[in-house]
């Protein structure tokens, strides 16, 4: 076999790909579900923390900053492994899927909180003052005046961070989640051929290119007229 031929046999082996396509497709489905769960819960929790922080209750804010810094500092894989292998030792077992979901949710929550918070503080103080001077309350001002402006600023960094963290679903393969990478690795062992990895890479592209495009669209959609 020549070099090219051997490369094609290893990575673009159509017979192997055909056999394991359904398995990878299932992995894709699982990744989509896992990613959606992480995005929804991570972004929602992050926003909730940022809003709590905006209330300016000192001890609460210290706690929020501590939690956020903790999950920004720890590698996601470490959190997954701790939850999956560590918690059962305390009598709290959870599935690989749940451990991956919870870990990445906490990490996305932490990064999203920082981004939302930066957005909220980037809105000029005069906006608060103008709104409050018309008799709007603190929460009304936050919701109607500050957040709409803050969220627009946060869309680009938030999109980037969300994509980076949801790609971490591949870490689930370490704790037996049959998401794209997990499925591809199984298929690779069964077939003794790495072509399923190529399929996996394609599956990731199919999943994330639309997400990147959506981020771009949202960015232009929510820009206000200048």
């Amino acid at each position: 076999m020549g070099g090219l031929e051997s490369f094609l046999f290893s990575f673009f082996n159509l017979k192997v790909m055909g056999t394991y396509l359904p398995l990878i497709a299932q992995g894709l489905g699982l990744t989509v579900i896992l990613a959606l769960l992480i995005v929804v819960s991570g972004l929602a929790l992050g926003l909730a923390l940022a809003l709590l922080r905006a209330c300016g209750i000192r001890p609460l804010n210290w706690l929020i900053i501590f939690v956020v810094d903790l999950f920004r500092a720890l590698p996601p894989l470490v959190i997954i492994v701790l939850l999956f292998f560590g918690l059962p030792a305390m009598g709290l077992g959870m599935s690989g899927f749940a451990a991956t979901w919870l870990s990445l949710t906490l990490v996305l929550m932490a990064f999203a909180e920082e981004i939302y918070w930066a957005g909220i503080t980037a809105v000029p103080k005069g906006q608060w003052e103008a709104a409050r001077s018309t008799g709007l309350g603190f929460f009304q001002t936050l919701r109607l005046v500050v957040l709409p402006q803050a969220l627009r600023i946060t869309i680009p960094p938030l999109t980037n961070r969300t994509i980076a963290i949801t790609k971490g679903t591949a870490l689930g393969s370490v704790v037996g989640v049959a998401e794209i990478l997990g499925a591809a690795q199984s298929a690779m062992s069964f077939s003794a051929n790495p072509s399923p990895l190529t399929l996996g890479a394609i599956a990731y592209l199919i999943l994330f290119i639309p997400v990147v495009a959506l981020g771009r669209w949202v960015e232009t959609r929510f820009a206000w007229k200048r």
Partner: protein
Amino acid sequence: MTRPAPSPAAAATRPIVDARGLWKRFGPLTVLKGVDLSVAERELVFIIGPSGSGKSTLLRCLNRLEEPDDGSIHVDGIELLSRATDINAARRRIGMVFQSFNLYPHMTARQNVMLALRKVLKQERAQAEEAAARALDRVGLAERMDHYPAQLSGGQQQRVAIARAIALEPRVMLFDEPTSALDPELVGGVLAVMRELRQDGMTMVVVSHEMAFAKAAADRVVFMADGEKLEEGPPAQIFGDPRHERTRAFIRQIDRH
């Protein structure tokens, strides 16, 4: 419409704004040192003074954007500094216009005006739209209602900000250097709107360096320096025959420009 001259009887009635003994410290800096200010209904009071004199802080205390450390403020009979006071309800009666306009950039001119009508006064959409249109018409911007702030000139933005405040039908309007951020050719439009408001009988407290406007329109000029009210009186007296040396120096300096 002409404004009736303030009669002695009117001057004897309870003032609309009555601030007494206001103290305000920012860290080691004391910016207000026991300042009193009272403003009668339909009166236009001008506050002048060098920068750092505390005039903006005094104005911002009058709707509690700044919390004085000591003193009392009554606006339309409501004690602003009392814990029992619903500050949001009180602020409906006090309009404020800022140096930097502070329009909401994600809303059109009309939406800027409508927000408080809908969310504070709880007006129906149709009613709020109509009130906003009326307010924008009053400041001469009926044609620009659906423009976003970034599509308006500075002078137009400031007039929208005035419309946003007057739409709530406040009892008193506070102006914090309303023309300081404007290009010279845009100042006139804003002053014209303020003059009209005054002719309609609006009570106004204005912090500004527009001395010509003060001479022409103010009932009373207050001169502040170093956190104290040094002198007050009719514009003719403050500008023509100031008693205090600091006032004289300030007026001289302003006149030179």
